[in-house]
């Protein structure tokens, strides 16, 4: 603080502090607190707001346990409340997206950090970035076109002779979530790539060579030397991709099949279609807390500390 004042003067320091305080208080804490408070109140006609019926309770949170449906999970029949079903599938497929981005991003990050010649790096990074200059909505629609029944993907596969008949990608080949997983993986792969790339760049190349010199095959060098070093990067990439995927509304709306529900869509329906902001707020709170819990649990499992990710 004293350092800031000495460097920028009292006036500018006060502006900095006020802006940061405004951001945290007004733009982060206040709206979230408002949501939190709303989530405990019933949805009432305007005239009854503040009246005798407007009391705090957990009724909104209880709604998630309503409406049990019979469905199957990978062939196993289960009876489960419909919104919890959506919720669990969202968490599961977000985790799958995270795994997919990791599988794509790690080798690419290693290539960029240790194998590609330093002179080609700016070009390669630019090529990776250019698609990201297009808005997420446009990219989602582009994939909608790619995956559509008479779209370029089916045309290409037919031309190559891989398939005889077009595949209905949006309805799903393996599950009804195929299209969502593919497009989310595409959209968020860079959020996985860059933290891992940064982490591997900081690894001393001599350590990789030392492992090889001691007789280590390539996979063991990665398992014992590169991955442990890159773990904070992998963890922060995983947290980012998981949270972004689980929270995505646009991609599931554009490319999702009618059978694939994404939990943010459920929340959106409460807010927008039912106009029941209170229940929407309750669902948002549940979603936020469970996702945070899931992330912390995974970090515990892989022995990553929060301070590692902040690096």
């Amino acid at each position: 603080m004293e350092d800031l004042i000495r460097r920028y003067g009292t006036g500018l320091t006060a502006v900095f502090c006020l802006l940061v305080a405004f951001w945290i208080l007004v733009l982060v804490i206040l709206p979230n607190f408002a949501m939190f408070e709303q989530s405990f109140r019933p949805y009432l006609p305007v005239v009854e707001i503040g009246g005798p019926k407007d009391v705090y309770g957990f009724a909104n949170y209880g709604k998630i346990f309503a409406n049990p449906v019979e469905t199957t999970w990978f062939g196993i029949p289960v009876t489960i409340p419909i919104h919890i079903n959506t919720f669990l599938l969202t968490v599961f497929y977000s985790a799958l997206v995270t795994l997919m981005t990791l599988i794509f991003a790690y080798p690419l990050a290693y290539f960029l950090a240790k194998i590609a010649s330093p002179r080609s790096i700016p070009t390669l990074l630019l090529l990776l970035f250019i698609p990201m200059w297009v808005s997420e909505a446009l990219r989602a629609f582009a994939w909608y076109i790619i995956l559509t029944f008479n779209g370029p993907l089916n045309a290409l596969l037919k031309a190559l002779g891989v398939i005889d008949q077009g595949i209905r990608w949006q309805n799903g080949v393996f599950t009804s979530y195929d299209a969502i997983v593919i497009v989310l993986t595409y959209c968020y792969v860079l959020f996985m790539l860059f933290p891992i790339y940064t982490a591997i760049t900081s690894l001393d190349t001599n350590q990789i060579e030392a492992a090889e010199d001691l007789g280590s095959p390539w996979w063991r060098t990665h398992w014992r030397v590169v991955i442990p070093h890159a773990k904070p990067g992998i963890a922060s990439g995983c947290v980012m991709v998981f949270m972004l995927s689980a929270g995505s509304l646009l991609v599931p709306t554009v490319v999702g099949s009618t059978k694939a529900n994404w939990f943010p869509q459920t929340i959106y329906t409460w807010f927008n279609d039912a106009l029941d902001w209170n229940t929407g707020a309750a669902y948002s709170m549940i979603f936020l807390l469970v996702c945070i819990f899931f992330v912390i649990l995974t970090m515990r499992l892989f022995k990553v500390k929060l301070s590692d990710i902040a690096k």
Partner: protein
Amino acid sequence: MSAGIDLENVCCDFGTFRAVDNANVSIKPGEFFSFLGPSGCGKTTILRMVSGFIEPTAGAIKIGGKDVKGTRPNQRPTALIFQNLALFPLMPIWENISFGLEVRGVDKATRRKKAEDLLKLVDLPGAADKMVSQLSGGQKQRVAIARALAVEPSVMLLDEPLSALDLKLRQHMRAELRAIQKRTGVTFIYITHDQGEALAMSDRVGVMSQGRIQQIAAPRDIYDNPVNGFVASFVGENNIFEGDVGPVADGMASLTGPHGAFRARITPEAQGKALKLYVRPEHTRLSKTAAPENSVEMEVTEVAFEGAFISVHGLAAGGKRLQAEVKNDGVTQAPGVGEKVFATFDAARALLLPDANVRG
């Protein structure tokens, strides 16, 4: 088992730059061999070629008589100790040391035992469960040696591993390395730019400059009988005189130049080339009167007390810098600054040498 190494006409090009030019050397099993040279002379390139990280552009490298062309570093019987050691900071010491055994599928208990044995060998018992960051520079050094020894290599390759240590520790580790080499009998190839290190530890030294091996000989020979001016200058100080070489007789020749006529040794290989006269400062005596031969008058400009000896610098006619060492034996008197003295040397101690062997 230690193995010998043969480099046969080995060349290595990086683009148009030739890093190693036609290197030929035969290193015997169990030998402590050093490559000595300034940075950029190609010595690290040779080491990386032997360990397998770089393939030679031409020529053959044989380890234990077998051509290792196309063999990856993880398949070669060599162990490299990196300049920065490259220990694995996220593994405890014992896992560092036993990593090579882990790769070979040795079970955990055996690995642990072997790591502890090796820690004893390098005089660092009880460090097995520490992390790399908890060790001092010298201790890390020992762990790196233990890690390399764990895979029982036929050849140990050391890339200036002592350069990061302070003087006292460096001298201690020199003796230590030499002792470990004797105990294990493994062939050591040592890379250094420090002539003291190379001369003190090695059985033989290869002096390099600009990608070429200038001379391969025992340390004593390198110092006393350098084959050219580069070797003479790199492994010690010299007073150098230019001039024209006269007729050769009994391995001696005369050199006549602006500072007078001198007599010095000449080798058959040096005959017929452009030569200069080289004589070491410790072979240069100072006296008040001129000697019958090999004597130059100079004015003393600086007298530096070095402890065991006194270094006397002076200027001869034409601004020629000369240097002599006076032993601090309590008898010999060093001249004072500004005094005029004669610098004299024995013809048998002076050498007529060509310049470095470089690509034409």
